[in-house]
């Protein structure tokens, strides 16, 4: 453990929106090439945590290290260089609804890396294939696809520029169990194929078990447990036990 290279590390990251203290000192790290899944209930700050790493949300305090480099204060060109290491699958897909599918997938290549539109088109078709979509969808608009297909497009866009670190924000939410499992397999396959480090968040335990090398649980803006995926069933932590059982009885009280 000690010698392993840390690809991404969050140290005491805090973020509040007004009186709403969302992140209250998050500490986690991921080793290079590993997959960490963060589980936790709705509104516990999972999306805010990922957005802090991406620089979409600026943390109030704490530090975020990528390849050992502090990133919270990066601006301009340095920030751009950092962004090129990242790929992100958004919770709602966040596909650009005015652009055809292929341009969605190739967006980062055309805008970020200056690939010509023709080459980008070919690359987009290839990426669409790798997530199991036929080339005939390339010219359609996002609104013309089903939710499952949109997730695949989002996945294709996230991996298009061969990122070092990929973030998945609830990749299986809103899909039927079989489609969810197909997406899980695709995530494992594509990130292993790229040798990428991944950080996923989910409340789907089946998905977590399938994707994760390590699992962490976030509760009220803090990481309350982390360990190997295999240890999740005997964590000895009552919060984790309640969460994986999906029971209303236990220390976690829903604020209704």
């Amino acid at each position, binding site marked *: 453990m000690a010698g392993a290279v840390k690809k991404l590390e969050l140290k005491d990251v805090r973020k509040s929106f007004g009186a709403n203290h969302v992140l209250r000192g998050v500490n986690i790290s991921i080793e290079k090439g590993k997959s960490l899944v963060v589980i936790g209930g709705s509104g516990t700050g999972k999306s805010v945590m990922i957005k802090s790493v991406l620089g979409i949300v600026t943390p109030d305090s704490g530090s975020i290290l990528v390849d050992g480099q502090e990133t919270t204060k990066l601006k301009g060109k340095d920030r751009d260089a950092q*962004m090129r290491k990242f790929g*992100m699958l*958004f919770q*709602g897909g*966040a*596909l650009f*609804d005015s652009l055809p599918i292929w341009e969605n997938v190739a*967006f980062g290549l055309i*805008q970020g890396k200056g690939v010509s539109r023709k080459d980008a088109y070919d690359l987009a078709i290839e990426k669409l294939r790798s997530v199991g979509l036929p080339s005939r969808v390339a010219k359609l608009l996002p609104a013309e696809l089903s939710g499952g297909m949109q997730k695949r497009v989002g996945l294709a*866009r996230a991996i298009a520029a061969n990122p070092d670190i990929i973030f998945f924000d609830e990749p299986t939410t809103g899909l039927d169990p079989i489609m969810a499992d197909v997406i899980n397999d695709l995530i494992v396959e594509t990130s292993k194929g790229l040798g990428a480090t991944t950080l996923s968040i989910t409340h789907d335990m089946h998905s977590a078990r399938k994707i994760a090398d390590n699992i962490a649980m976030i509760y009220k803006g803090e990481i309350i447990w982390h360990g190997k995926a295999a240890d999740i069933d005997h964590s000895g932590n009552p919060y984790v036990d309640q969460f994986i059982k999906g029971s209303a009885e236990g220390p976690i009280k829903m604020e209704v």
Partner: protein
Amino acid sequence: MSMTEQQDDAETARGFSPVVWLLDLCTRIGATLLGFLGAVGRLSAFAGRGIYHCFTPPFYPRLLWRQLVDIGYYSLPVVGMTALFTGMVLALQSYTGFSRFSAEGAVATVVVLSVTRELAPVLAGLMVAGRIGASIAAEIGTMRVTEQIDALTTLSTHPFKYLIAPRLIAGTLMLPVLVLIADVIGVYGGYIVGVYKLDFISENYIHRTWEYLTAEDVISGLWKASAFGFIVTLMGCYHGFNSQRGAQGVGAATTNAVVSASILILIANYFLTQLFFAGK
């Protein structure tokens, strides 16, 4: 018993104390003023950033072209109709007025001056505020709430350069073009009514139209148009970009964009008119 009575007295006394009332009033005025200044500050900062990104690469000519077409070409019917009927009404109304002191001959001059200096820019600005301001706010607001703006950032694309700069540039450039066309249509509307309804002789009407018109009349109108185009696109972008979550947030952003753009156009119009007036 007497304790509570005393307390009640004290409370009533406090309720009516003019000093407390005055302090309270000051606090409220202060809070409103601070809120207003804060909003002005945020809007100015947003405008400053927007303008900065209009002039720094990368540029997106494709997107700019789309906005130019959207704002310029597709607004033509609305602006054209507005100008036509305004010119027509203006001819009728000024005829009614001028005939009362036998100055009917001034109708053509009044139509052309009112249209170019005032009515074409302001009415085109207001119509475009409804059409373009609303659609910009709705589009950017939807992109905000569906995380598409966040997605842009993760794909190494600056939202200000990609979304806002093309719209600001297109609005500022296209409104003068629209207004120039509206000038011609509006004057033609006046001509139609003048010749076919009020029985002016065509050559006379045309002669009267040109007689007192100066380049400055037209140009000052075009400067106004440019400012209004900037205001409309800026308000659309600002409210869309800061849209609150949910469909309701986008709806509110759209309404605010149209209302604030319309009011700002009317205010700016006064000050610009005064500026050109003083320049004489």
